[in-house]
């Protein structure tokens, strides 16, 4: 019984791993998000819904920052003077707030909109 359940779980995992190469090869759109003077630019970033995106978080301050978002389920330390990728989505249309966990007053949002046909 337990063994069967484990087997089932592993086969699900195996099928998930099977789709990885196809998924990783897909196109990915990149958006820049600059952190300078403890503020995000742009403060609201409009992105297409329904596809996997890479946010390049560029911390131009000397202080380290932590890009964090409960809405996106993301959390990443961006040391001062570094530019790092954060993969998000595919998002449903809507607003996704994010902030700098090391300086919570610095906030911003992604606005996911349906792509134009």
């Amino acid at each position, binding site marked *: 019984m337990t063994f069967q359940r484990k087997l089932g779980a592993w086969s699900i995992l195996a099928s*998930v791993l099977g789709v*990885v190469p196809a998924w990783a090869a897909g196109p990915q759109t990149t958006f820049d998000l600059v952190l300078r003077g403890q503020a995000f630019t742009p403060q609201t970033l409009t992105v297409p819904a329904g596809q996997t995106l*890479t946010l390049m978080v560029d911390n131009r301050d000397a202080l*380290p920052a932590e890009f964090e978002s*409960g809405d996106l*389920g993301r*959390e*990443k330390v961006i040391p001062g003077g570094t530019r*790092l*990728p954060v993969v998000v989505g595919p998002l449903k249309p809507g607003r996704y707030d994010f902030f700098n966990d090391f300086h919570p007053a610095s906030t911003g949002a992604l606005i996911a909109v349906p792509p134009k046909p």
Partner: protein
Amino acid sequence: MLATAIIVFREVLEAALVVSIVLAAAKGVAGRGRWVGFGVVLGVAGACLVAAFAGSIAGAVQGRGQELLNAGILLTAVVMLGWHNVWMSRHGRELAREMKAVGHDVAMGERPLSVLMVVVMMAVLREGAEVVLFGYGIYAAGTGRDAMLSGGLAGLGLGVAAGALLYKGLLRIPTRHLFAVTGWMVLLLAAGMAADAAGLLTQAGFLPAIQDGVWNSSWLLTEQSLTGRLLHILVGYTQRPSALQLLFYAVTLAVIGGLMALVNRGGARPQPRTETPDAR
């Protein structure tokens, strides 16, 4: 100062709660304080090391080194916690009985304790690295050093106090029930860590979300709130989990829980220690 205290508190809280659960789970085992202490010291040392090389780690593997390192840390802790639980489902009853009989701590060998040491080390390392990085950033900037230091100490103190509170609470549970409670806590802790690791691997682009945001319960409870934070640490509450995270959570529960049940069935026969050699 208050802002610093809150930031440091949030980071310390996770490590402190993990340490207190681990300490309670090893109640009655001689030498647990020493091993957990080793774990904290190694974790702090590791945190400083990781913070010192934060730039190179973050830049590694095309900017995805941080996620790989943290996912590796989390999954190591998951394996160790699972191993501990399986070990306890075999020996926990025996341990509780012996503790009651002799009235003091029982020597159970060092293997299970070294496993818990690794868990403590991993928890302290992961959260500690962020605290060190955050604190050093302010220190290096040169402004607000005193406020940062006092705020940091206040946050550290509060986090440790929260851990101590949980530990005291757990110790009030009668020994015969304690290991059942800590067993469940460790199981849920491990499942939550596995889901966190899945989230990091998706964030780095190594694994697909399968479905991003299966639900969104932020209207009910956000992870930013104290309750949300506590539930995130203890049971892996995520306001907007991906299907991959749910899968990791479920698989961890099923595998560790299944192994526990399997081992427990073998060990639950009356008088396991006077078992005659297998007749097979």
